[in-house]
């Protein structure tokens, strides 16, 4: 096409006639340019509908030249967007340095990345070496070596002894014979089995909420359910003491996060007021606002003052996301969690996140709330949509465990008795020997009154009714590593001398937002005999005195 145009005699003639004014070297260039324009025009004319476009451009330019400029600009912008790189940092940013291929090759040659795994520190090695392996079944009596002695297990959460419940084993075998083991699919694609729906209904009716949704892991539930609702620009007011899973959820949500002092309701109110004031000052539009807290805090066993939080949430129009991964199955007369403990209807809380692995000794987690809240997560919560559903027998066992909890409130009683017995043993090492019975008004922590104890070595912030007990050293050494070594000595000592298995809380140092203090972590079970628990408490006390007493 272009060749024909180029060699047409008129074209050459035009070029010659122009040669009088234009310097000779430019002539071939100009003629080829003209030829190109002709070609384009010709091609354009052959397009269907091109006269309409041409007429449109002409008329619009005549009517309003600025509009044409604007349109041209928009077109350029659209093209730029179209051809721009997909991810940030792509292409020619401000700091982009153009390099030759040879230079790039040299840089590639010189590139020397860090090893994928860094060298473990001594503390790391200690952590790895001290993780016990249980030989045979888990439960309240375990062995940490194939032929070792039997230890009382105060390290595994097993509030009601469901880990070794025979009824649940029966249910599991029945389920195996009907459903097999895995579900082989996410819940959206034929992974929703009838027993999942039953377990969801059971949990909802047990707690008294409208609905619930099951996830296949409690940790993933917490870090995924929060960002399913809280988005960029929303406001989350969170307790400083919340667990790691919540931190990750908050991080993913990209919301505006305000922290309040751990367990301090006055500070919570102050933060809420600040947010309110700021919103009024800016006159911004209404954004979603959430309060995030835990029922029993995983990091220290403290309880949330739920009635007060509910009051504040209603006053300031916040939605409450309550993580009950520890308290579900542990608190309240039937194990419904801290809503039952405080006598607050669960429907007052917008979202209750619970763990079936801790509370019911099966696996997975659930989120209970209104129908809208649960339905939304089925499509919008990443861990629910993109993961295989919970194995059938873990769901049926959860249903079975809930039935047991409903019908046998004595399980909760014996748990409370064991907790009391254990705490009694340790109270002699706490800073204050309580003058009255341990439980304060409304079940909250008693104020620190009583006789000051000069032999005190430890402090236990955990709530008196909490089966999860964290023991902190009262006078810790200066660095965390030494403190963890001392705690590990206590763990070893109590295992050696009293045949009790406990653990120190394991942390992800440098990944946590607020580094939690090292502590010993104790899980009491209602399934243990009172005598055993008492002996264990005594053993732990002796071990603490033996390890710490000598140093101070």
């Amino acid at each position, binding site marked *: 096409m272009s060749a024909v145009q180029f060699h047409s005699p008129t074209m050459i003639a035009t070029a010659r006639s122009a040669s009088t004014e234009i310097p000779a070297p430019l002539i071939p260039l100009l003629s080829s340019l003209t030829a190109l324009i002709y070609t384009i025009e010709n091609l354009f004319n052959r397009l269907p509908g091109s006269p309409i476009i041409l007429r449109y451009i002409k008329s619009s330019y005549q009517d309003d030249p600025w509009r044409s400029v604007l349109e041209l600009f928009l077109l350029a912008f659209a093209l730029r967007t179209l051809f721009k790189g*997909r*991810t940030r*940092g792509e292409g020619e940013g401000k700091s982009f340095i153009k390099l030759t291929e040879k230079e790039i090759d040299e*840089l590639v040659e010189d*590139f020397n*990345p*860090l090893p*994928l*795994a860094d060298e473990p520190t001594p503390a*790391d090695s200690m*952590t790895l070496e001290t993780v*016990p*392996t249980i030989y*045979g*079944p*888990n439960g309240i009596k*375990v062995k940490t070596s194939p032929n070792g002695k039997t230890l009382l297990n105060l*390290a*595994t959460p097993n509030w009601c002894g469901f*880990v070794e419940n025979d009824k649940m084993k029966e249910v599991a*075998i029945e389920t*195996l*014979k009907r*459903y*097999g*083991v*895995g*579900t*082989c*699919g996410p819940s*959206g694609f*034929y992974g*929703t*089995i009838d027993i999942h729906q039953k377990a969801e209904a059971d949990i909802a009716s047990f707690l008294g909420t409208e609905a619930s949704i099951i996830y296949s*892991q409690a*940790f993933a539930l917490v870090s*995924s359910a929060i960002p399913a609702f809280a*988005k960029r620009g929303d406001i989350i007011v969170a307790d400083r003491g919340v*667990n*790691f899973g919540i931190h990750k959820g908050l*991080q*993913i949500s990209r919301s505006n996060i305000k922290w309040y002092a751990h367990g301090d309701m006055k500070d919570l109110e102050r933060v809420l007021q600040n947010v309110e004031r700021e919103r009024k000052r800016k006159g911004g539009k*209404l954004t*979603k606002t959430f309060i995030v807290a835990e029922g029993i805090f995983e990091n220290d066993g403290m309880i949330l003052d739920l009635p007060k939080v509910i009051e504040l949430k209603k006053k300031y129009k916040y939605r409450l996301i309550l993580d009950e991964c520890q308290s579900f199955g542990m608190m309240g007369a039937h194990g419904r969690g801290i809503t039952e403990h405080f006598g607050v209807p669960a429907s007052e809380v917008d979202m209750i996140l619970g763990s079936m*692995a801790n509370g019911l000794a*099966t*696996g997975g987690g659930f989120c209970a709330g209104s129908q*809208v809240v649960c339905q*939304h997560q089925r*499509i919008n919560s990443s*861990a629910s949509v993109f*993961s*295989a559903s919970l*194995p059938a*027998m*873990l769901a049926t*066992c959860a249903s079975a465990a809930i039935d047991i909890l409903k019908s046998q409130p004595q399980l909760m009683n014996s748990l409370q008795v064991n907790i009391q017995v254990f705490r009694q043993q340790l109270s002699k090492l706490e800073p204050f020997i309580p003058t009255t019975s341990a439980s304060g008004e409304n079940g909250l922590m008693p104020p620190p009154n009583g006789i000051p104890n000069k032999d005190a070595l430890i402090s236990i912030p955990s709530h008196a009714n909490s089966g999860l007990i964290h023991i902190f050293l009262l006078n810790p050494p200066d660095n965390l590593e030494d403190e963890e070594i001392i705690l590990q000595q206590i763990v070893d000592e109590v295992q050696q001398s009293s045949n009790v298995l406990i*653990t120190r809380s394991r942390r*992800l140092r440098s990944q946590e937002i607020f580094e939690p203090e090292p502590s010993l*972590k104790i899980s009491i079970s209602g399934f243990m005999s009172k005598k055993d628990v008492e002996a264990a408490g005594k053993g732990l006390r002796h071990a603490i005195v033996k390890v710490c007493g000598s140093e101070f």
Partner: protein
Amino acid sequence: MPRPTRKSASGGASTPPSSLSSSPPSRPSYPAISLRSSSPSSSSSGGKEMPNSNVLSARTSLLNVLTRPNHSTPSTNIISSENNSSDEDTIYSDQSTLSGSSYASSIINGSIVDKQHLSSEDIARVYENYLEKPFVYTKSTIKHSEFGHCNNPNWRWTSQWNPDEPIHPEEEPHPPYFTLLTTYISYILLIVIGHMRDFFGKRFRPAEYAHLMPQNGYAALNSDFDSFYTRRLKQRLEDCFARPVTGVAGRTIVCYDRSSNDENKTFTLTGTTTRALNVSSYNYLGFASSTGGCADAVEACIKKYGVSGAGPRHDASTLDLHVQTENLVARFVGQESAMVVSMGYATNSTTIPALVGKGCLVISDEFNHASIRFGVRLSGASLRSFKHNDVNDLERILRDVISQGQPRTHRPWKKILLIVEGLYSMEGSLVNLPLLIELKRKYKFYLYVDEAHSIGAMGPNGRGVCDYFGVDPREVDILMGTFTKSFGAAGGYVAGSKAIMDRLRLRSHATCYAESVSPVLLTQIISSMGSIMGVAPPLATPAEEDKSDSLSIVSRPQAYGPAPSYILPAWMKLPLNLLNGTEGRERLRRLAFNSRYLSSGLRKLGFIVYGHRDSPIIPLLIYNPGKMPWFSQLMLDRLGPDKTPVVVVVVAYPATPLITSRVRFCLSASHTKNDIDLILRACDEVGDLLGMKYGKQTMNVEEIISSAEELVASSKFD
């Protein structure tokens, strides 16, 4: 039982089975595909002729399956006393006999049916109990409805890279422009109508929009913009998703029938159930089962251990079973060490932050799974993504990032981690691992391969993409995978060198804060994985096995050797066929055959099919959103005379790009060849009705079915 056994079938050294089983280079080169009994009319049958042509095609199909030329000679002596007592239904054999092409004969009600008089009622009767009763009695202890009995040794294939076959098709198949145009118009219509309904609905029926509007001083819980797709587009297809089921998601699955009176907002169960052929579950090796050796081991485990994994691994919830499983997994994938996590999704989302952080760069394939993206976001590392499976684009990015360093500061990156998937769950495409390994040597990045779908499903030994491509697994820094898909359990693993695994054990969120894996799942993993590997010693070499077979566990490469028996728990008693690895090998080969057969067959039928031919995930493109619910429904309420329902998964935006909505078949070793035939027929009839054959149909469905083996052996991509 006086039936020809497998031994007799594979006895002759020159018969196809043994030559099929040899390694790919020595694969027999089959002659060009021969078309038998071609009937050109049925391939071009339009929608109007449907009922007639369907009966016709189904009839010929049955003839192909049931009545092969020498059906009158009772070479397969199947009317034994056992069969008579078992059922009076149609019994016909899928057994291969020495005569090769004749491997079936049909007897309906004891009399041999003249093939001219096979009406659709007869076909319906033949298929009446198709999903639950095998045509031939086998000694298998596993239910036919969970794991189909399929004994013909011709219907096996080995999943292994053939360097002559391209890893990716030269160019993606394109739909006609008309289809693209109508798809876009459909979406525009949906969006316009949706917005109109929102506009009027909010004003006239505020109660139904309460959760989208601010009330009592609370901001709306869900933004109507964010949920627009869910409410206005997905809700129209809602019946295709989250169908409640019961029982095992094996070869077949039982769905609850349901109906909706309020435009799919809520569903009510009608109280009846439908058993359907299941090509939707990730059950690649068919280990989802309520019976059989693995289930027995799990039962023993429940009695001994209970069901709970209880607390986090580091808090005294590490069982001996966890350690045993980790050792076994490390051996299975050919790495030094491994770690198990209680959820597949969480395996990625908790591991990646433990490997990379600020100052590190993650390069990720654009189609990587949501869990990988979640993990990268948690890690705080920078992210660049490259075009799906495009090695050139990857190299361009690598040169760019290494030469430029970190943004603004230009410091070199601390680490560069490339994250890819072995087999992409929505595309069915394989990663080009050999090329990535070359790039890795040059550019010194670390390689993380997510084998969620490929582990167990790919490779001659089922060890994933490394095995498939013959790449040393230790060339890959981190191998990650899940147990949900091939092993019928749940959870995931990461495997790598001991140093890396130790770091992960210390830094991974899962070990400190997430629940440990339930012992029940661990047992399922150990037993299923052990049965793929075979256990040695005692190496129970099957007496009748052909020693020259390159896939026998005796002659496997060292990297993929059998599991030493001391790794397995002492209390676990597995039957011989699991211990010696024959069962596992059968499953691997059945899956490979099924995948290749369906993938090739659908292509021949003129459908646009993505992905690699050896992939057990086969996406079939639908494009028009309106066809999605129809496809799903028509596969369930079959028009064809066999009336056997099939459940399929349809996937649309946001899991796929907006226009390429698709149906995704997930094949399994539990499917028999007859099942695949049935799927092909079903797709053929629905494809004609809905006009979904966007490509060029080159064979009709009965031709495809009769030349299954040739199609599978052919090395041509389309």
